């Protein structure tokens, strides 16, 4: 992990967050920068990236005031824009190379994900800016949060962003466990018991089996956020691998932790230099209570079955770790997270901070749960694991597919192990097809057309694979059929069969 390898990573990707309400007077431009990766890039280069971004946001507003710049495609780079909060922009610059065939929407979803997670833990960036107008607070938080987030993408010395090989995945969606009727009833009664433990206070729960969602009473947006975090850091796989899980398969799991450390070690001092040199907000001068929810290997399972971490600090007197908290998007309420794990089962309970009397209250609640619900949890886990078919549970032989229910933020796809059997050509072609569908979807969003897009595309590619995209009533189906018959009718029939059997006929024609 020398300087050279660090440079590789910086060559491949840049990510910045900037605030267009800051630094608008000449000479103060640096003030706009809230985050820049890689931090050791010369300030002039950082400023030029942000200058171009700001320039194009302004320029495109001439013609498209409602939806300014979304992407710049240049010969060697793509610049992906995301306006995370009013006037707070995130821009990712990726280099185009042979393996780097991106789908812009997939990259934008990465930006969206890191931002929504950030808000879940720290509140909005704007609020942090307002709280400390020097910018120090927001910079510190963004720096550690995004660096921890990016470390999940590092493979060896490089950041591996979602590319064409992830064409049959949809970031920012939930993967559900299909459960039988009886199991569902048991889960339901478990949830009821858990809620009763909290007494009168309104609490939320999210039940997962392995990396799959079983049940929740959270709003869809909060569900996606918490689910994403759980898969990243809380589920048994996340705990054992530190970072990776099969549903977010990443190669070279073992490399993750080491390279993460290296990344932070290498860029840490550089960042401090930067923050000092920009003099707007020396990182170390302030003593912010720093919480790094995405830090690796910080969660562990306690003897009582509850997951613990000292990310949120420890009680000064008792040295008991402080209970983690998040903000709910829906209700804008601050909640304690209590996560209980038994084998494959993870139950996350959210209790309003306002309704619990500090750490003591939490301890009491834990006790209650252990007494009243632990047995039920054992039973539920047993039932679910009996019914579960393992990693390849949702494999449909002959098909490679992705099914997305946009209204409910749910997706299901062929297992990653099966997707890797597809040829590069098929995956690239699918990636391009999805790009095209993305733009068609984008247009119907722009039109505010109340009727949802209905679309069917079947392509016989050069390599004889069939690529299929179907949109109907907010549901999407993408499919690759390799080694299949030449005729269009064959391909249509294959989709029809799939639709009948696995989608309740959602994509059937009649």
């Amino acid at each position, binding site marked *: 992990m020398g300087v050279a390898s660090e440079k590789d990573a910086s060559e491949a990707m840049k990510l910045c967050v900037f605030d267009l309400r800051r630094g608008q007077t000449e000479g103060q431009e640096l003030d706009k920068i809230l985050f820049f990766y890689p931090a050791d890039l010369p300030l002039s280069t950082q400023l*030029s990236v942000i*200058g*171009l971004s700001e*320039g*194009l946001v302004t*320029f*495109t*507003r*001439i*013609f*498209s005031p*409602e*939806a*300014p*710049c*979304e*992407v*710049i*495609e*240049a*010969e*060697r*780079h793509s610049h992906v824009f995301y306006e995370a909060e009013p006037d707070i922009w995130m821009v990712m610059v990726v280099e185009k190379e042979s393996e780097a*065939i991106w789908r812009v929407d997939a990259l934008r979803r990465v930006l969206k994900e890191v931002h929504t997670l950030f808000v879940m833990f720290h509140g909005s960036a704007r609020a942090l800016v307002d709280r400390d107008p020097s910018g120090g607070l927001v910079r510190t938080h963004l720096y550690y949060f995004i660096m921890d987030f990016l470390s999940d993408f590092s493979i060896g010395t490089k950041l591996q962003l979602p590319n064409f090989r992830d064409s049959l995945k949809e970031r920012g969606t939930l993967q559900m466990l299909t459960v039988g009727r009886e199991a569902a009833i048991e889960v339901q009664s478990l949830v009821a018991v858990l809620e009763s433990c909290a007494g009168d206070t309104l609490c939320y729960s999210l039940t997962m089996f392995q990396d799959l969602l079983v049940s929740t009473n959270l709003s869809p947006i909060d569900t996606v956020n918490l689910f994403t975090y759980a898969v990243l850091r809380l589920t048994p796989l996340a705990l054992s691998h530190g970072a990776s899980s099969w549903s977010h398969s990443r190669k070279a799991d073992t490399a993750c932790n080491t390279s993460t450390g290296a990344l932070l070690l290498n860029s840490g001092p550089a960042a401090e230099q930067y923050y000092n040199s920009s003099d707007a907000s020396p990182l170390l001068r302030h003593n912010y209570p720093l919480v790094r929810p995405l830090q690796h290997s910080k969660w562990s399972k306690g003897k009582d079955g509850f997951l613990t971490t000292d990310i949120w600090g420890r009680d000064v007197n008792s040295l008991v770790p402080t209970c983690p908290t998040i903000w709910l998007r829906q209700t804008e309420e601050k909640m304690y997270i209590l996560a209980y794990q038994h084998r494959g089962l993870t139950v996350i309970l959210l209790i309003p901070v306002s309704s619990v009397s500090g750490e003591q209250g939490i301890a009491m609640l834990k006790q209650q749960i252990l007494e009243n619900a632990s047995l039920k949890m054992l039973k539920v886990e047993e039932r679910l694991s009996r019914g579960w078919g393992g990693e390849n549970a949702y494999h449909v032989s002959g098909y490679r597919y992705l099914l997305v229910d946009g209204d409910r933020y749910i997706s299901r796809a062929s297992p990653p192990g099966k997707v890797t059997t597809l040829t590069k*050509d098929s995956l*690239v*072609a699918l990636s*391009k*097809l999805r790009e*095209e569908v993305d733009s068609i979807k*984008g*247009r119907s969003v*722009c039109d505010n057309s109340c*009727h949802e*897009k*209905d*679309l*069917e*595309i*079947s*392509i*016989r*590619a*050069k390599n*004889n694979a069939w690529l299929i995209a179907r949109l109907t009533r907010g549901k999407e189906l993408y499919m690759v059929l390799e080694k299949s018959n030449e*005729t*269009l*009718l064959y391909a*249509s029939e294959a989709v029809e069969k799939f639709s009948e059997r696995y989608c309740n006929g959602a994509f059937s024609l009649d």
Partner: protein
Amino acid sequence: MSSNSNSSPASSFSDKDDRDPNSDSNPEPETLAELETGPELEPNASPDLIDQSLDALENQLASISMSSRSPTALDDEEELQEEETEQSLEEPIIRNGSLSEEIGAEGSINEHVESNWKAESSGVIKESVSSVWRNTSEVDEVERPLSPGSSGYAGERGSTSGGDEINDDDEDNNEVREVQNDSVPGSHDQWVSGKRHPDEDDASVSWRKRKKHFFILSHSGKPIYSRYGDEHKLAGFSATLQAIISFVENGGDRVKLVRAGKHQVVFLVKGPIYLVCISCTEEPYESLKGQLELLYGQMILILTKSVNRCFERNPKFDMTSLLGGTDAVFSSLIHSLSWNPATFLHAYSCLPLAYATRQAAGAILQDVAGSGVLFALLMCKHKVISLVGAQKASLHPDDILLLSNFIMSSESFRTSESFSPICLPRYNPMAFLYAYVHYFDIDTYLILLTTSSDAFYHLKDSRIRIEDVLLKSNVLGEVQRSLIDGGMHIEDLLIDPTSRPGAMSSHLGQPRPGINSSGGVANGFVGVGGPAGLWHFIYRSIYLDQYVSSEFSSPINSLRQQKRLYRAYQRIYASMHDKGIGPHKTQFRRDENYVLLCWVTPDFELYATFDPLADKALAIKVCNRVCQWVKDVENEIFLLGASPFSW
């Protein structure tokens, strides 16, 4: 200026390696031979070289709009250009070395040039300075009365008239207009050419809301052309575009596309010329980029690529003057980008004609092509009746498109026989050819292209011979009849193939039976709105570089529907021909408007449109029948044996 015109420095247009020193068509071989040792020239000489070619260039431009100008106007023009020459002599920048380097880079283009052309090119360019002028003005004097005050461009006629919005292709307000008669060929003819909304600039709300902008600017940010608004008022905006391009360039990259909501900003850099399209028309990037390429090609057709030297000499060179009066050419090209499939298929279409009729036309063109004519084209509007190239020379479909657009949009060609320098960008972007153009009637015109600048009278004689034959064999009459009959009507698919008249004596199997004639309807095979309702198709023959598009019929009646279908074809074409992974083999696409079926083979491409509820199996059957039908009548709808783009 005239003092320079007889010296040889304009030879800088041609690649010295390609020149045949033995050519007797070169009037001053010795001087040229000296000049061929370019790098040995003293540096001071080279600016003259450049200036010469520039003057030649400017003169070409002047001569384009020459034909209807009075002699006094000519004199004025000359004075102006002389001033320009003097001025430019004072600021020589480019050394000869860099010049020949650039020419060397163009070598590949020159390779395609015929040998006699190589020999003549230098002489032609050199002489063009004066002789083209002479020719055109002589033509004027001889052939027609002068009409002072008109520069000959359609665009200058009433371009500011208030009612032109209804013809604005990319705006919505024309889209309610229904075409009464669906068999009217080319209903887009009602479109008015010329500059639109010249009073607007980037501060106007209306300007910002235009659906599709095109800009040409120089690398220093000077506006050259804008589809909407006054170029001069758009100087600030133009500078912004330039700043974006150069900012990215400074970072070692090149900007291609910016996307914002429904808007796309597409950039194309061609040396010192920048082209930009800002559009919310939902066309794919590849299509918009192709359109900018065509726009650039159109500019090259008027100026040749040697216009780059103007910028080498003076980066702040203002090119608007060079393109003065050509608004109509660009606006008509931009208009065709929204209806003419040739613009994205890169293929040309032929006017349907009986085989014998086309043969007759081809024979006489062939006859003429031997004697100093590089290409002979007989065209009806934008469709080819016949075309012939001299030995080995071949014509790219894009060149045909740009040439016919140039001729049809320039009013002067209609009113008199003309002899005008033009450049075929795909053939040789560095050099001018000379086009003799004559309209036989309002739609049908002849183009004879030559490398020789003094061939006017020879070509005039050739034209008379051609006209003679065309009249005798009634080709022109057949052309008019074809215009009325139209091309392939999908209703004709109703006819059972076996019962279709084998001899094809009537036009493409016409007279057509009514919709409710027996056969088709009984089959339940094709019917408007039926389960396999074929609405339209385009068939492109790969080897012939030609395509045929069926006539629009119900329910694709209105211009709005036709344009929407055109855009759908454009999208599926781009989707099928992805640069990295394409071409795909088959594509079936159903949305709320259509079913589109596309089939690409090494021989042909078929794009067919059906009712959105069409049944797949039936649609496939219909496609097979369409292909068979096209094969059955290929003698009549295609120009066979011309293969203009294969060498």
